[in-house]
C-alpha cells in the first residue's frame, strides 16, 4: 500500500529538517524515496500548511503489567467519568490516570504517539506485561526489565564475577523479552524487604557482602556496554522524593561520568533541603551536571496539577508516600527480583511542596541546553497523565502562558524561583526532538523518530495553532506503519504493534548455573519462567553490539 | 424437635475429589450431603454419627448425614456444593456474595442413627 503526505512542513530533526516543505512517501509501511511510489496508485493526503512530524516516541511510561493493573483495580473511582464507549470494531475502556489497555493505545494514538516504552517490569511477571501489550493497539513497544535488586546480579557482584552478571543479563532480557536494563533504587528495594532502605551510594545491601548501590550501578552500566544493548541503563536513582536526592543524583552522575546512562523522571530526584521541611528545587545544580556530561540523557517526569497515581518498583518510597500523604497503599515484594507499591495522589498548585516539584521540572527543561538529551515525560501516571503532554508542550513553547501558570502556584514555591527569569521557548523543532527524535536515538530505535528513507511510516500531522496545547492534543492525521489510525484526534482503526526485545548472545554455560539457582530462588520452575517463542504474537528481536 | 443453629460451608478434600469424579457421583453426594456438628449439640438433639438430619431455611430443605466434628456449640459445617446451595438464599448485602457462612438453619432429626442414640431429650 502506498501513501503520499504532500506539501507539509516537515520537522524531522534527525535528518536536519526544520519546517521545510516536503513530501513524505510511504510504501509497505516504510518511508521511501519518491520514485519508489506510483502516484496514481497511492493514497494522497494534502498536508499543505500542516506540520508533519514522526510519530511520538514515549521513553518512559507505566502502562501495563502487574503493578499498573493493580493500580487500575485500586482506583474504580478514577475510571468513572473517563469512560470510552465502543465504536464500530473499536473496544470500550475506562480510566483517568490508569486507563485500560485498549483505551491507553487509543489515547496515545490520538496524540500522535506510535511507540512506547513500558518503564518497569519485574522479569518474573513479564509474561503478564506482554499479555497486556497484546491488548494495547496502535503502538510499537519495548519493556524495561528491573534488575537493580536482582539476587543473581547481586550474587555476581558479591562473588566478584562480572561475566556471570553479563551472561545473566543477556539471558534475562531474552527470557523476559525485554528491551533494556532498568534500575530502580538499587539495593533499596532489597533492603525494604528488611524494612529499611538505602540513603547513600555506598550503603550496604543486606545479605549481599560487598554490594552497594554504587556497585550495582557500575556493574549494570558495564554489562550494558559490553552487551552493546540498544538503550543505556535506565536509572531511577536512590532517594527519590527526598531532600537528599539532588546530592545523591549528582553523585550518581559523577560515578557514571562518561558512561552512557539515562536518568528517568529527574524532577523527582532534584530536591534539596529547604526551609520548614519543604524541599528546595535544585534543578540548576542538577542541570549543570547534565549539561557537562554529553554521555547522559534524562527525562523530566513533569508534575501536572490534578489526579495522579504513584506507582513504582521503589517499595520503600511508596511506603514513605503512604506515610506522608495518607490514604490507600499497595505494596508488592517480588521474590528474588524486585518490589514496588502504589499510592494515589493529588498534586495541588496550592500545596507548596507540589508547586516546588512543578517548578523543578520546568526548570530542568529550560536549563538543560541540549534538547537531544532531555525528554518529555510525566513518568505517567506518577507525576501526571500522559494525556497532559500537550499542556506541558505549551508551557515549554509559550513563556507568557508559563508565567501565568507560575503566578497561580503557592507563593512559597515562587519565592526566589529562577523559573520566571527563564525566557527560553522551545521551538517546534525542539519539541520534535524531545518527543520523537531524541527518545528514538537514546533508545537505539533507528527506524523511529524520524522521516528519512527507511524509517517506519509512523507519522503525525498537526494543524499549526497558536495554542500549542490544542495543536498537540488533536493531530489531523496519525499513521502507524503507513495506515491511518487516527483522524482529528479520534482513533479510526486498530493495528497491532510490535514488541521489540533484545537478543544478545551469552555463554550457554550460564543456563546451568541459573537453573540450579532457581531451585532456591524461586517458587516457579526454571522451565516455566521464560517467555517462549509463540507466546507473544508480535515480537521483533533487536540485535546488539 | 428442631433447633436453630448457625451453618457455615466450605471446601473439603473429599468434596473436591468428588467433584472431579462428577457431581452426580456417589463420592460427591457422600462428600457434600454431610453435616458436621458439635457432639454436645448432637447429644441434645438425640442423634449419633451416621444419623440423618433435615436442614431447612426459607429457600428449601435438604437431608444430610451427620458426623461429630470439632465445632463450637451452635455451629454446624457443611461442605460447599449442590446440597448446601439448596439452603442458601439470595441475599448478598450488595456485594454479590451470598451468605455461605453464618446462615441460620432449622435442624430436625430424621433418623437418630446407629445404636446408642436415645431420641430427643425431654
Amino acid at each position, binding site marked *: 500500500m502506498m501513501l503520499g503526505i504532500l506539501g507539509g512542513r516537515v520537522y524531522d530533526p534527525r535528518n536536519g529538517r526544520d519546517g521545510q516543505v516536503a513530501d513524505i512517501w510511504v510504501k509497505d509501511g516504510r518511508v521511501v524515496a519518491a520514485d519508489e511510489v506510483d502516484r496514481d496508485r497511492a493514497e494522497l493526503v494534502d498536508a499543505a500548511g500542516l506540520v508533519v512530524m514522526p510519530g511520538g516516541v514515549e521513553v518512559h511510561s507505566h502502562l501495563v503489567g502487574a503493578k499498573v493493573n493493580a493500580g487500575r*483495580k*485500586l482506583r*474504580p473511582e478514577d*475510571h468513572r467519568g473517563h469512560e470510552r464507549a*465502543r465504536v464500530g470494531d473499536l*473496544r*470500550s*475502556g*475506562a*480510566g483517568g490516570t490508569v486507563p*485500560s*489497555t485498549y483505551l491507553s493505545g487509543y489515547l496515545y494514538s490520538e496524540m500522535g504517539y506510535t511507540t512506547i516504552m513500558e518503564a518497569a517490569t519485574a522479569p*518474573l511477571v513479564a509474561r*503478564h506485561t506482554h*499479555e*497486556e501489550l497484546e*491488548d494495547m493497539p496502535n503502538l510499537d513497544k519495548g519493556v524495561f526489565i528491573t534488575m537493580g535488586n536482582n539476587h543473581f546480579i547481586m550474587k555476581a557482584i558479591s562473588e566478584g564475577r562480572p561475566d556471570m552478571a553479563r551472561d545473566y543479563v543477556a539471558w534475562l532480557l531474552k527470557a523476559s523479552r525485554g528491551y533494556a536494563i532498568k534500575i530502580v533504587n538499587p539495593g533499596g528495594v532489597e533492603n525494604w*524487604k*528488611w524494612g529499611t532502605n538505602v540513603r547513600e551510594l555506598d550503603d550496604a545491601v543486606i545479605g549481599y557482602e560487598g554490594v552497594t548501590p554504587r556497585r550495582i550501578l557500575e556493574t549494570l552500566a558495564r554489562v550494558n556496554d559490553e552487551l552493546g544493548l540498544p538503550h543505556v541503563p535506565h536509572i531511577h536513582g536512590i532517594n527519590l522524593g527526598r531532600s537528599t536526592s539532588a546530592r545523591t543524583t549528582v553523585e550518581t552522575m559523577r560515578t557514571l561520568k562518561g558512561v552512557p546512562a539515562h536518568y528517568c523522571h529527574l524532577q523527582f530526584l532534584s530536591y534539596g533541603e529547604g526551609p520548614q521541611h519543604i524541599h528546595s528545587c535544585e534543578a540548576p545544580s542538577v542541570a549543570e551536571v547534565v549539561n557537562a556530561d554529553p554521555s547522559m540523557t534524562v527525562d523530566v517526569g513533569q508534575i501536572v496539577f490534578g489526579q495522579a497515581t504513584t506507582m513504582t518498583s521503589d517499595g520503600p518510597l511508596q511506603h514513605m508516600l*503512604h*506515610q506522608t500523604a495518607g490514604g*490507600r*497503599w*499497595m*505494596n*508488592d*515484594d*517480588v*521474590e528474588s527480583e524486585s518490589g514496588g507499591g*502504589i499510592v494515589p495522589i493529588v498534586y495541588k498548585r496550592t500545596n507548596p511542596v507540589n508547586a516546588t516539584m512543578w517548578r523543578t521540572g520546568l526548570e530542568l527543561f529550560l536549563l538543560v541546553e541540549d534538547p537531544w538529551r532531555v525528554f518529555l515525560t510525566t513518568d505517567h501516571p506518577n507525576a501526571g497523565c500522559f494525556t497532559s503532554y500537550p499542556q506541558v508542550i505549551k508551557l515549554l513553547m509559550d513563556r507568557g502562558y508559563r508565567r501565568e501558570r507560575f503566578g497561580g502556584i503557592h507563593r512559597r514555591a515562587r519565592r526566589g524561583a529562577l523559573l520566571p527569569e527563564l525566557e527560553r521557548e522551545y521551538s517546534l523543532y525542539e519539541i520534535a526532538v524531545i518527543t520523537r527524535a531524541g527518545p528514538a536515538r537514546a533508545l537505539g530505535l533507528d527506524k523511529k523518530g524520524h522521516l528519512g528513507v527507511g524509517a517506519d511510516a509512523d507519522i503525525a500531522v498537526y494543524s499549526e495553532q497558536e495554542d500549542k496545547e490544542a495543536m498537540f492534543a488533536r493531530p489531523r492525521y496519525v499513521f502507524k506503519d503507513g495506515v491511518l489510525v487516527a483522524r482529528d484526534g479520534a482513533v479510526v482503526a486498530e493495528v497491532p504493534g510490535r514488541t521489540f526485545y533484545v537478543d544478545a548472545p551469552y555463554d550457554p554455560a550460564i543456563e546451568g548455573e541459573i537453573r540450579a539457582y532457581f531451585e532456591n*530462588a524461586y*517458587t516457579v*520452575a526454571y*522451565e*516455566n519462567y521464560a517467555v517462549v517463542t509463540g507466546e507473544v504474537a508480535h515480537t521483533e528481536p533487536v540485535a546488539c553490539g | 424437635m428442631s433447633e436453630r443453629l*448457625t451453618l*457455615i460451608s*466450605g*471446601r473439603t*478434600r473429599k468434596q473436591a*475429589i468428588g467433584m*472431579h469424579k*462428577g*457431581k*452426580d457421583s456417589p463420592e460427591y453426594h457422600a462428600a457434600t450431603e454431610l453435616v458436621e456438628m458439635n457432639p454436645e449439640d448432637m447429644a441434645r438433639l438425640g442423634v449419633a454419627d451416621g444419623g440423618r438430619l433435615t436442614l431447612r431455611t426459607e*429457600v428449601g430443605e435438604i437431608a444430610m448425614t451427620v458426623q461429630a466434628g*470439632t*465445632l*463450637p456449640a451452635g*455451629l454446624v459445617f457443611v461442605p460447599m*456444593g449442590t446440597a448446601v*446451595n439448596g439452603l442458601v438464599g439470595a441475599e*448478598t448485602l450488595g*456485594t*454479590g456474595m*451470598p*451468605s*455461605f*457462612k*453464618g446462615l441460620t438453619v432449622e435442624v430436625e432429626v430424621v433418623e437418630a442413627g446407629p445404636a446408642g442414640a436415645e431420641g430427643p431429650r425431654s
Partner: protein
Amino acid sequence: MSTVVEHVACPFCGCVCDDLTVEVEGARIVKVKRACSSGQGVFMEYDPSPRTARVRGEEADWDAAVAEAAAILREADSPLIYGLSSAASEAQRKAVELADRIGAVIDSTSSVCHGPTGLAMQAVGEPTCTLGEIRDRADLLVFWGCNPDQSHLRHFARYSLNAKGALTPNGRADRTMYVVDVRETGTAKKADHFLQVAPGHDFEVLTALRLLVQGGEPEGDPIGGVPRAELEELVERLKSCRYGVFFMGMGLTMTAARQHNVAELFTLVAELNEFAKCSVIPMRGHGNVTGADQVLTWTSGYPFAVSYARGYPQFMPGEFTAVDVLVRGAADAAVILASDPGAHFPRPAAAHLEAIPTIVFDHGPSVSAAHATVLFPTAAYGVDAAGTVYRMDNVPIPLSKVIETGRPTDEEILGRLIEAVRT
C-alpha cells in the same frame, strides 16, 4: 508409547504448583506425580474421549452449535457472561471481548469468593508479596478464616508453613504459626497458637488488634471470644517479627461483614508496617480466578461485576454480580465459562439459570452443562490445552498441553462466537 511431561503446572487451585510430572500413554494420562488429591483428580479423572457439541441435548457439530449460540446472544437483551476461573487468560480475554461487543454483564467467580477482598483492596490498598518471599523470609504466619489443609493442599509444603528457604532453612522450626478461626480445623491443629473467634466477631477482633498495635486499650476480655492476653501476645510477635504474613479466606469474605472484615485486616497489616514487614495473601480458590481479575481489570478497568450494557464498562457489585443478576431475573441468556454456577450458586440464582437459554463451556458433566441449551465440551486448560494462568500471588505461569484430544479450546470457540455475533 509412553511419554513423560515434566514441570507441568496444575490448574486446579490458586497454588498453581508447577512441579508436576505427568505420564501419558497415547492420549491417556496414566500417572501424575507430586499433585495433591485435587490435582490428581484434574488429570486422572479427565475423560479424553471424543466429544461433540450439543444443542438442546442433541449432538451437533461445532459450527452449528456456534451458530445457535450466536443466535441466542443476538436475540438476548441482557446477556450474562459468568465464570472464567478455570479458563486460561487467552480465553478470558475473548470472553471480555464478547461481553464488550454484545453489551453483556460479565462477572467471574470472584464475586462468590474473593470479591469482597477486591472491594477491600479498593478501599484501603493491600500490602502483599509473592509466595517465594514467604518461603524465604516469613517467620510468623497467621491464617485467618481459611483452611489450606482442605483447600490448598500443597501450600504448606511449597510456600508457607513447612517450606524451606534462604532465611528459613529449618522450615517449620523457623516459623511460628497462628490460626484464627471459628472452629478447630485441620489447619488449626498444625498451629502453634489457635485463636478461636466467636462466629461473626472477626471484625471486632481485628479492630482490637489494630488498637493494640497503636498502643491503645481495647475494652473487654475476652474480645470476640478470644482471651485478651492471646491478642496482646500476637501483637507483640507481629511487631517484632522479621517478615509476618497473613493468609485470609472465606471466613472473612463470606460472613456478615464481608469486605469490611477484609478491609480491617488489610488496614491492620498496613499499620503493622510501621513496626515490622508484614504482608497479606488472599487465598484465591480457583486456578485462574486471579487471571480473571487481571484480564477484566486491564480491559475494562474493573475486576468483576462489570456491565457493558451502555457500551462502556460500568462496575457495581450488587448490581452486576452474577448471583444478584440471576436472582432478580435480570439476565435473559447466559454464557457460562469454566465454572459451575448450577451447582455452586444458591438455589434462587441457579433456578433462574434453568429458566433462560445458557451456553456452557465445560468438558465435564457439571450441573450447568446438564442444563445447557448449547454445550461446548471444550479442552481443559492445563490438560489438553496450553495457556497462561495467574497464581494466587499474581505470578503468571504457563500451562502445558499434556495430551492431544483434538478438542477446540474456549479461546477458539469464543473467537468464532464473536465473529458470528457481528455478522
